[in-house]
């Protein structure tokens, strides 16, 4: 984990998480296509400064925990026909995640 001012990670590898769907103004790094979708934590990256604050000259503190979250392609895009076993993996900050 990086950063002495970070709290303990809320999630661990394997946890099912849902991405918040939010009409949040300003700079965010959560792509629209995963908002509201459910995935699983693939990796806990550790604490990193919050880009939503850095983008406006803030210090990005306290550092949120960052996770690599894995989504089944079929869950994200709901394609017609047979689902592939493909996946989309996205780095998501903890405050965008809730337990699923």
């Amino acid at each position: 984990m990086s950063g002495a001012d970070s709290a303990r990670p809320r999630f661990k590898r394997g946890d099912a998480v849902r991405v918040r769907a939010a009409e949040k103004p300003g700079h965010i790094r959560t792509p629209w296509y995963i908002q509201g979708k459910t995935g699983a934590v693939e990796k806990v990256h550790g604490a990193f400064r919050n880009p939503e604050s850095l983008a406006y000259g803030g210090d990005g503190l306290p550092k949120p925990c960052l996770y690599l979250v894995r989504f089944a392609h079929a869950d994200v895009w709901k394609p017609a026909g047979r689902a592939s076993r493909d996946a989309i993996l996205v780095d998501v900050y903890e405050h965008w995640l809730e337990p699923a």
Partner: protein
Amino acid sequence: MPRVHDRGGWPGAGPIDKAEHEPSMWEKRTDALLVLLTSPEKRVMRVDELRRAIESLEPRAYETMSYYERWITAIEALMIEKGILTHEEIDARVKELNERGR
């Protein structure tokens, strides 16, 4: 409705044009400028601020400007926002450079 930079799954995307262009000198210098301005030694700005400034472009501008055109536009906006340069002095220098034809 996703914002213009939030491009995953954007409809109407055509085949991928694989042609590559060697960046011109001004593009490389713009890139270099960003690296220097965001370096921990200088910390004049953050990459996050550049992204935010680019995301603030009018959607049509975002979609039609080239990659480094977006960058230099964002760098200019941030230099002005941070009070490091003014719009007037940049305009004046552009005018001077144009008149000198260099």
